[in-house]
């Protein structure tokens, strides 16, 4: 697993951080705005935000006063690609299963034909 992806998944393993990311999908927000729904300190939210930032999921605005957090959508695309890769592997596996099943179908067909000639 690439370092960035492991950081992304580690960052998203925490429910509060997943919530914060969900909140950021609807627009940029300041630390104070992000902290409002939770029973935690602004400092704790800041810490969570730092983890998201280090994972590349979130960037911070330049405005020194507010520094709004912004969700980096491309990183999400990366995750989608990752899951797509897993899906493709499953698909490869099931194509091999298709072949096995086709053979079972053929065997049934052969049995039927053989029974036909025997009778």
């Amino acid at each position, binding site marked *: 697993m690439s370092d960035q992806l492991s950081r992304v998944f580690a960052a998203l393993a925490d429910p509060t951080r997943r919530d914060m990311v969900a909140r950021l999908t609807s627009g940029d927000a300041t630390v104070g705005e992000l902290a409002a729904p939770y029973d935690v300190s602004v400092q704790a939210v800041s810490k969570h935000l730092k983890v998201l930032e280090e994972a590349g999921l979130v960037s911070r605005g330049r405005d020194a006063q507010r520094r709004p957090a912004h969700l980096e959508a491309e990183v999400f695309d990366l995750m989608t690609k990752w*899951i797509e890769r897993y899906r*493709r*592997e499953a*698909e490869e596996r099931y194509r091999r299963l298709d072949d096995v*099943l086709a053979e079972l179908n053929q065997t049934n067909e052969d049995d039927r034909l053989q029974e036909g000639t025997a009778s």
Partner: protein
Amino acid sequence: MSTTTHRAEATIEAVPDLPVIRIVREFAATTQQLFRAHTDPDLYARWVGPASVSTTIDHWDARDGGSFRFRNHRGEEEFAFRGCFHTVRSRLIVQTFTWEGMPDDVALETLVFEDLGGGRSRLVVQSLCDSMEGRDAWLASGMEVGVDEGYAALDGLLADGAV
């Protein structure tokens, strides 16, 4: 998060808030045939591993309370998996699944075979992992392994006109 392409292809869903991976795939086969391909060790060994590995079944007892162990190997590398068959019925298999490299991480897998009529069936596989981290580790497994040879296998199938 889910991706869907062609209708016949496998779809996958990784539920964001639950340590679950769900895969759905349709087959041109009866539920009985799907069941056989999942419970007959010789058939299972032919399709379960990535294209580049061979599969050896060490132990296989596909019935309620039974268990299994198999190894995938490629050159010097070997990966062993094992689990317990909890329920083995014609349309349903409930089993545990563990990679022996992380023996304490156990996934609970529910496999359902649905009859679609006309000789077609739908397979629904749900894997419930014991943590989000465990789920993500499963998703990540095989990331370096299998991707290239997966495409190669697909190329082969395309070349044969099998796809």
